[in-house]
């Protein structure tokens, strides 16, 4: 438009009219319009990059994580030979227990050899023991547990579904190749030939692996057996602590600050503290938990209770901030009406303002909990990593007090282990964690949509 006025000015001053009309753009307008388009393009590119990163991240998670949900299993009829498991033949449970997992090895060897024979596959090994490398070392314990639970089965031939060794599983998932096995001392290319043949025969199958979702962590050498179930329970107990403490404390603190607090130095001090705590790095809360709860108060290390306490302190500012916002959104007329019919200040808040603010408070709490569920750094300092979370808690007290892991801590633990098979577990764990977070956030959104009132 500036050009237009300029043109007209020049036109009025003399007969030397510029060649261009207002309908054709001059060079300067073109430049400015190009700059405008460029600038707009930068915006689109920036937004695009952000979204591409999101897609890349989600793609990496889904692609790397989904294999963790299936696992290669071998279906083997194992003869529970009486001569090996119960020499005296009197089914005495104490004597059966004396046979260690090592004593079950020959049974598995026989079973594999028979499976090969039945399917007409020639064994490339002279020693039958070499074939058991195809099978996870967890298989012997699995068979032993079943025998100890049902001693009557001894002497029968029972069909078992045992885990394939992690390398074999990796081969079928494309993680392990024949070239990479050249440097591997656990497995040879011949093993893979046998595995391929067994797969064709239907003895080896890839099936959905519930044990990954519900099972316990396993030692470093048995990634095929590791599951996230125990850590999930640890997270559950931690979230219970966080919910039970941070919701009442957060709501009480917000009510005080929003409805009762006088304008003075003390209130300012509390407000400054809350807004600063919201921005303190989470690792500092871990240091606090270590120094105060573990060193000073002597609470047990690695316990979900301590983790829950630390996460409570971390979540409180989030919950207080969102609760105050929803209390503030309740219009003053509600309070005035309550006071007008003779309610006390306390009654007006608890009977009228709080119920109306509840949907907003719950939404904020769920989002705060979701944040706490994904938090890792403070848990590292209070000792929720560095060991194998293999025991399910056997009761509520033990759930709170016994050493356990949490989902993000378990993922970190797996990411730290040397075997690449654990990376797949870590990605799989992330999928489970994100499913939980997504569910919580969707619940929060639904709550907000459904109950939010516009005044």
């Amino acid at each position, binding site marked *: 438009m500036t050009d237009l006025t300029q043109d007209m000015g020049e036109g009025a001053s003399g007969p030397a009219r510029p060649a261009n009309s207002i309908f054709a753009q001059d060079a300067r307008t073109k430049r400015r*319009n190009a*700059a*405008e388009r460029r*600038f*707009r393009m930068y*915006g*689109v590119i*920036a*937004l695009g990059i*952000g979204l591409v*990163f*999101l897609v890349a*991240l989600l793609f*990496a*998670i889904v692609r*790397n994580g989904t294999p963790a949900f299936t696992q290669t299993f071998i279906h083997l009829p194992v003869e529970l030979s009486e001569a090996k498991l119960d020499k005296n033949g009197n089914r005495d449970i104490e004597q059966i227990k004396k046979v260690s997992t090592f004593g079950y090895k020959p049974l598995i060897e026989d079973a594999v050899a028979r499976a090969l024979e039945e399917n007409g596959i020639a064994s490339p090994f002279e020693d039958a023991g070499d074939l058991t490398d195809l099978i996870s070392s967890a298989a012997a314990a699995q068979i032993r547990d079943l025998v100890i639970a049902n001693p009557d089965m001894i002497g029968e031939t029972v069909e078992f579904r045992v885990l394939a060794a992690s390398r074999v599983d990796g081969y079928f998932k494309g993680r392990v190749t024949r070239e990479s096995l050249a440097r591997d001392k656990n497995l040879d290319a011949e093993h893979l030939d046998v595995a391929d043949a067994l797969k064709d025969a239907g003895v080896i199958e890839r099936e959905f692996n519930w044990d990954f979702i519900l099972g316990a962590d396993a030692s470093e050498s048995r990634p095929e057996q590791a599951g996230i179930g125990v850590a999930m329970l640890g997270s559950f107990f931690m979230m219970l602590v966080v919910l039970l403490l941070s919701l009442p404390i*957060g709501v009480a*603190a917000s*009510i*005080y600050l929003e409805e*009762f*607090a006088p304008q003075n130095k003390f209130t300012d001090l*509390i407000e400054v*503290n809350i*807004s*600063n*705590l919201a*921005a*303190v*790095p*989470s*690792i*500092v809360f871990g*240091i*606090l938990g*270590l*120094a105060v709860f573990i*060193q*000073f108060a002597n609470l047990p290390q690695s316990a979900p209770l301590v983790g829950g306490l630390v996460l409570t*302190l971390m979540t*409180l500012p989030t919950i*207080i901030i969102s609760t105050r916002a929803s209390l503030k959104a309740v219009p003053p007329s509600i309070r005035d009406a309550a006071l007008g019919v003779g309610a*006390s200040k*306390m009654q007006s808040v608890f009977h009228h303002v709080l119920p109306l603010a509840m949907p907003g408070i719950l939404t904020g709490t769920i989002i705060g909990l*979701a944040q706490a*569920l*994904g*938090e*890792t*750094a403070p848990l*590292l*300092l209070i000792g929720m990593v*560095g060991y194998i979370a293999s025991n399910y808690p056997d009761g509520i007290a033990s759930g709170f007090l016994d050493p356990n892991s949490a989902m993000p801590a378990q993922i*970190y633990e797996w*990411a730290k282990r040397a075997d690449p098979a654990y990376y797949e577990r*870590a*990605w799989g764990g*992330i999928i489970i*964690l*994100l499913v939980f977070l997504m569910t919580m956030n969707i619940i929060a959104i639904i709550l907000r949509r459904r109950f939010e009132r516009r005044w």
Partner: protein
Amino acid sequence: MSATLTLLIILALGALGYLAGRARAMSSAGGDGRKLHSLPGYYGYNAMLSALIPGLALLALWLIAQPVFIENRVETLIPETAYEDAGGLSLIMSDVRRVAEGLDVAVESGALSPEEARDLEAGTDDLRARLGDVGVALGSDVSAETLAAAQRYRALDRIGDWARTAIVLLAAIAGLGLALQRTHRDLRARNSVERVIKGLLITAACIAILTTLGIVLSLIFNTIEFFRLYPAAEFFFGTTWSPSFGGGSELGILPLFWGTFYISLIALLVAVPIGLMAAIYLSEYATPRVRSFAKPMLEVLAGIPTIVYGLFALLTVGPILVAIFGDGGILGVGWMRGGTAVMTAGLVMGIMLIPFVSSLSDDIINSVPQAMRDGSYGLGATKSETIRQVILPAALPGIVGAILLAASRAIGETMIVVLGAGAAARLSLNPFEAMTTVTAKIVSQLTGDADFASPEALVAFALGMTLFVITLCLNIFALWIVRRYREQYE
């Protein structure tokens, strides 16, 4: 009587108090609720609180104080020749506690009669084996002094438990009685109940102060302890970081600082242009449909836990960068040796910060008054000229504040650097080399079986203190800028 049982009795007394208080108030008004000062329930709550507060407060205090008191008394029984320093004494005391607890367990499970437990002798009875039978494992055989101390411990504990039960219950009953006696139709029951509730609300609000206090105290005490073992000047100005738990470690913070700074810088170089431009596009150009789709999508990035970003850095971005910049990579430059590097962590951290920068900038750009835009358009400026010459200068303080907040996030971020940046502390300019940060070293010094009294573990607290102070200053400064700016247009 156990503490749990006492607690249950107090709670029962409280419930009883509610019913009695309510009934008494009603009868004082002749059954006519209108003559009461408060609603009948408040008289009940008043009586209930009068029983609960003294009872629960005393119980809590006693539970904390009794062990301390008993330990002090029992410690005098242990001859000073039996230990060398405070650590030795605390080891003996924990033995004493275990033996005492073990004897209690044995009596409870019936393995020992109470008399037998009292008359045990260290030399003749094989205490360790007998306690082992009931499931209490002892590290060594029990000496005569330990046993004597344990017996004294048990005796004092028993007396303490009885005294606790008696006094706590008496206090609760006295409070209840007093409240019931005062319960009358003119008693301002609601006012006193509301005073108590308000007290609870204030206590809840004070937890924020207590948390800050807890953080500051736990950092300060351990930092002082660290500086007693290691000179402060060498910590702040040392250029080598090589902790060794055997002793002779050099704990200079400068390499960690450099790593933190370098990674944060790269993260900001990624996040600020992208985040800012995305915010400008979303708030000034985008149609409502694009905005309602793209804004939540960007915010999904903010909701993803940092461990996910850490894993993404370690297993996806690191290998990709090596494939480009590493030996035999696409560019063939061979700058990068391993997947963990400053670049890896910085890039991923930048992705994490994009939504943070964009949503803060979005708010700030939106709060620039529409009149300023209209004025600029009226003078003939294009949209981009308006943005560059009017909106951004007006929003600049707020945007600087947002960038500072993002920087404080980047400095305090832990999981991405623990997994993506490597573990080697070095001062180098090459962004493709592995470096480490303050937060990563806090984790590595405090996890594992470190001895918490050694300077190598205590240094983590000094690092935490530095981190806390830096992020606090950045936050306060940023909030100050943002707040100052906001006031200009309101």
